[in-house]
């Protein structure tokens, strides 16, 4: 049975070719592949862990952000309220101030008017006294010349005075 007897030539070539393929694969093939696969596994595990960590962080950040937003909204409402109040106060203050101002000015104007009026009256009185004195002087002067004419002048002056006064 030639099938069952090993052949030396084939054995020789088997040693050579298997030796070569074993050398190549054991040196450059399998270790490199297995190392790369290990590294990849490690990388994937790490990436998964990192992703989980990131997710956790994101969740806390989200919560924080929500809290911050809620706070900010509250603050805004508060600020708006305050601003409204302030505006109202400012407006009412302005109104009050304006009114007071007007009042003061009015009083001042009135007193000034009064003052001017008094002054004018005093002036007029003085004038009248002067005129009266002049008239009186003229009358006295005329009397010495013409009684009749004197009488007419006094009448005339009186008429004038009355007219003026009324």
């Amino acid at each position, binding site marked *: 049975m*030639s*099938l*069952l*007897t*090993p*052949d*030396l*030539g*084939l*054995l*020789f*070539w*088997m*040693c050579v*070719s*298997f030796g*070569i*393929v*074993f050398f*190549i*694969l*054991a040196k*450059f*093939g*399998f*270790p*490199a*592949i*297995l190392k*790369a*696969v290990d*590294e*990849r596994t490690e*990388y994937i595990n790490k990436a998964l862990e990192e992703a989980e960590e990131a997710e956790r962080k994101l969740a806390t950040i989200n919560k924080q952000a929500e809290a911050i937003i809620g706070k900010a909204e509250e603050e805004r409402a508060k600020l708006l309220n305050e601003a409204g109040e302030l505006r109202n106060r400012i407006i009412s203050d302005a109104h009050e101030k304006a009114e007071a101002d007007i009042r003061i000015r009015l009083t001042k104007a009135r007193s000034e008017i009064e003052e001017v009026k008094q002054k004018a009256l005093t002036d007029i009185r003085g004038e009248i006294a002067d005129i009266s004195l002049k008239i009186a002087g003229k009358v006295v002067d005329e009397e010495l010349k013409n009684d009749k004419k004197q009488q007419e002048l006094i009448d005339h002056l009186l008429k004038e005075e009355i007219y003026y006064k009324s």
Partner: protein
Amino acid sequence: MKRSKKNIVRFFPILILLFFTTSAFAEEKEELNIKELIFEHLGDSYKWHFFEWNGKDVSLHLPVILLDKNGGWHLFSSSRLEDNAVYEGFYIANEGQNKSKIVEKDETGAEIRPWNFSITKNVLALFISVFIISASIMSLAKWYKNDKRNPPSGFLGFIEMIILNIQDEVIKPSIGEDYKRFSPFLLTAFFFILTNNLLGLIPIFPGGANVTGNITITLFLSFITFLLINVNGNKHYWKEVFWPDVPTWLKVPFPLMPLIEIWGIIMKPAALMIRLFANVMAGHSMVLGLISLIFVSVSMGVAANIGMSTVAVLFSIFISLLEVLVSVIQAYIFVLLSSVFIGMSRMKEKIKEENYIEHH
């Protein structure tokens, strides 16, 4: 179901065509020696026969490398030895112990075999398979050199899956701690056996050679396993061989148990050798025998020939598919048993006892 029916219908004309061609074939060759035909296909050869064209063989003549009895080297094409030709004193023996081997005559006229380092069909198939294995695994290694992050897809992904599966599911649990020392050999052996098994199933070049169904190849592989088992065996392993835990009378006057254990040391790898060889060879013989049925049944008439041919073709398809399964299983079993044997020779005493309790 519908699809398979459709396929049968599609194949039917091919089957019929096949019958006619085979019938035409068989008429030319009157006598058929089936046994010889099968053995010729199973064995080694100095040429690689492709097909027959116009009654002529189309084949690749391989180089013959010989070291003769006087220590001289000879290198020539095997076509010089065609048709019983004698070249430089060498010829192919037709019968006897050295049948279909290259022989020369010594001084007394007796046939002797020279040292024969010819590149035979099996050697060429060996080279092809070694090239395929190296190319595919090195291309995977190269992939990882370029891209460390992404796993490869397609064929390379398939190879990676096999490597990881064999390493993590077979080698690691069987050998234990320092499995990394042994995994290069075991992985190489796995790919070597698998590739050659599958190439052997392809009927045309570069497949069709019966490499893993050759006892020389399986002898080599199992011898390496033998060395790995015994060179790396620990103290406990050798103690179990020479002084096992059995009643003293089984080992003192006559060392019965040690002898059995030593026999076991040899038989463990020998079983590996025979198992792989026999499985692959049996598969090849089955397919060849079934195909031969077509030629044998020609003499029984047309109806019988068609009937037998249908059965033979269907069966050989079935056997071929089975052989694909066997190819993978045998490669797996060789590596599994090798690593189990290596692991057993390195086991510590305590673990061994625990395992014993677990299993019984």
